[in-house]
């Protein structure tokens, strides 16, 4: 007979951030995973198949409730899952067992995977997995993701996952809801659960949390025995980086390396090859030849497909030849920073400085992401707590932060002009950043939230993970950019063919020539810049300009409106009035600063 219960069982991987969950998930599902974006969030879940069952990975969380998008997503997946594989970091048992205890209290079938056992052994710590299993009431499998230990054992034991020892306080209230999961969430004041049961009674969240915390700590202490206080290298480096005397030079070296890698290696060495040799040298003649056979030159369709802004010429040459290497290089750098544990430390170092512009250290995440893609970064401002912080971060991103595609081209254009020019550019943009932030901090009402951040251990990133991350982020970028570029190319081609483009340029001339003192053709670049920032800067690279004009143009275009995609996201994330205000201020600031530069220097 068909065993429906077995067939239906879904497996869910749950754990705190950075516990190596994805490695185990990957070992179960292989490479065929499906990445899906959860509706209304930026959070991705991945699922795959293992022995005919659905296996889902969830975002890293510290607990289950509705504090942020990650938790809401994980909560949904957990509530619908049958077997929970809870991956815990054996070096941070106290912290991780809080989530484990919560999963057990929810009455879920749980199996614990005790990761990082190789580190535990190296640090001469002893953890009694058997005792841990006894105390929790669920199976515990010691493992090491890095060494591949315990994966087979976990797979063999997964069906032994069971309901563990639920805390007495939860048992006492079992009658208030249909399941233990509901009881736990109700007692903890989960808003959706309160709505489901139409209850408004004062929640017992703090009481339950405190009891759980104490129980988790007690269990962790019982099963762990340390020989001596071990102070290892990872901890030493991690602490050293927090000291401004070491941290700031390290940060500056990192930034220089990133700019060198993205702006020089990717934008020039690699892109010269991909754009110059492959796309311009081989692809363009091929596609122009091919299309010319079917569509006569000089017609509208020939302009549309293979003209100056052709869908088959400019769009793929820009996206594949130029942007892909830039964006891949940026995400490679970002993944290295993320996986090594550097980002939270950068957040701590910059917390004080960022507080002057109304942000806390956490805001460094959207700001750094902005150097990759302003659109994605604008979405990530959601992880900031107050509306005030979101507004400030969005404005700074929209106005002052150049994205990776832009940086590559800007560095390419400014670097040959010498250090002084680059410095003027950097100082100008930096000044606008500080002034914008300071003004918004003064003007906007309310207070910003404070920093409360866990510092993960520093570790050497795994090349495989870095590669995977870079690949998936780059893929995401290309699929998003391709559409925008095709639409952009088409619009520009239509504008050019109909003669509208030259009318617009004539109309913009007083601004371009009068205010910015740039050559007439630069207007193209500015109009394209509205579609995509990098588009605009790329358009400038073909125009002959004096060093001063190049500097003015690059500065103005950086501050100029962000690309159409990020404007759309800005309008989606913020209120219409707010987004419009940011957008228009961008225009005004760009033209003012550019104008001053053109006339004063």
């Amino acid at each position: 007979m068909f065993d429906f219960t077995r067939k239906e069982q879904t497996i869910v991987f749950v754990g705190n951030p950075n516990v190596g969950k994805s490695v185990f998930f990957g070992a179960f599902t292989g490479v065929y995973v499906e990445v899906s974006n959860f509706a209304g969030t930026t959070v991705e879940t991945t699922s795959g198949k293992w022995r005919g069952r659905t296996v889902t990975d969830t975002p890293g969380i510290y607990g289950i409730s509705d504090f942020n998008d990650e938790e809401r997503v994980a909560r949904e997946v957990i509530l619908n899952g049958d077997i929970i594989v809870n991956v815990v970091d054996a070096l941070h048992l106290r912290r991780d067992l809080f989530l484990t205890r919560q999963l057990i209290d929810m009455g879920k079938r749980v199996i614990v995977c005790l990761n990082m056992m190789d580190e535990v052994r190296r640090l001469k710590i002893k953890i009694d997995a058997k005792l841990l299993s006894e105390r929790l009431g669920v199976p515990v499998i010691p493992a090491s993701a890095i060494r591949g230990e315990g994966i087979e054992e976990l797979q063999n034991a997964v069906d032994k996952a069971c309901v563990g020892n639920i805390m007495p306080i939860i048992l006492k209230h079992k009658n208030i809801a249909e399941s233990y999961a509901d009881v736990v969430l109700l007692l903890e004041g989960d808003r959706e659960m309160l709505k489901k049961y139409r209850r408004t009674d004062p929640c017992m969240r703090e009481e339950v949390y405190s009891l759980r915390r104490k129980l988790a700590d007690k269990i962790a202490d019982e099963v762990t025995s340390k020989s001596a206080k071990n102070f290892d290298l990872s901890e030493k480096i991690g602490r050293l980086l927090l000291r401004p005397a070491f941290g700031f030079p390290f940060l500056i070296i990192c930034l220089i390396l990133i700019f060198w890698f993205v702006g020089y290696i990717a934008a020039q060495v690699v892109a010269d090859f991909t754009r110059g040799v492959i796309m311009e040298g081989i692809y363009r003649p091929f596609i122009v030849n091919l299309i010319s056979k079917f569509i006569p030159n000089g017609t509208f369709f020939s302009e549309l497909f293979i003209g100056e802004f052709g869908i088959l010429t400019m769009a793929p040459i820009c996206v594949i030849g130029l942007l892909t290497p830039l964006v891949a290089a940026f995400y490679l750098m970002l993944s290295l920073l993320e996986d090594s544990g550097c980002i939270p430390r950068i957040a701590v170092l910059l917390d004080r400085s960022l507080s002057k512009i109304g942000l806390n250290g956490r805001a460094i995440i959207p700001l750094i992401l902005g150097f990759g893609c302003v659109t994605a970064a604008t979405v990530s401002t959601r992880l900031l707590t107050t509306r005030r912080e979101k507004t400030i971060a969005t404005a700074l991103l929209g106005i002052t932060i150049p994205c990776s595609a832009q940086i590559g081209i800007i560095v390419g254009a400014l670097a040959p002009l010498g250090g002084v020019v680059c410095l003027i550019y950097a100082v100008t943009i930096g000044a606008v950043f500080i002034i914008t932030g300071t003004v918004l901090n003064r003007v906007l009402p309310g207070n910003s939230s404070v920093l409360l951040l866990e510092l993960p251990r520093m570790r050497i990133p795994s090349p495989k993970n870095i590669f995977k991350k870079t690949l998936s982020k780059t893929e995401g970028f290309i699929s998003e950019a391709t559409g925008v570029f095709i639409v952009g190319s088409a619009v520009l081609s239509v504008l050019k063919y109909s003669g509208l483009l030259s009318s617009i340029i004539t109309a913009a001339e007083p601004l371009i020539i009068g205010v910015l003192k740039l050559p007439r053709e630069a207007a193209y670049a500015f109009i394209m810049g509205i579609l995509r920032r990098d588009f605009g800067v790329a358009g400038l690279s073909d125009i002959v300009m004096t060093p001063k004009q190049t500097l003015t143009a690059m500065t103005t275009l950086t501050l100029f409106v962000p690309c159409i995609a990020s404007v759309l996201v800005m309008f989606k994330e913020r209120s219409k009035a707010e987004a419009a205000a940011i957008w228009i201020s961008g225009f005004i600031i760009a033209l003012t600063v550019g104008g001053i530069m053109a006339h004063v220097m």
Partner: protein
Amino acid sequence: MRLSEVKAGRSFKIISIPDDEIRVRAIRLGMFEGADAECIFKISGGPVMLSVGGQEIAVGNPLAKKIIVDLRK
């Protein structure tokens, strides 16, 4: 004594943490009223880094000013 006034290297007990939501977030990270902690390092005028239950946590200055602790002799 406030957390922001603790010197690096000193051990202390956390007496009180303000604000419901912060208290709950802190419990999850292992930091709760009554917990023993050690100040690892602090950036002057900036965050305080503390170690509690083997976990390193950074606390922003404005919050550190509101957390009351008791130094251990």
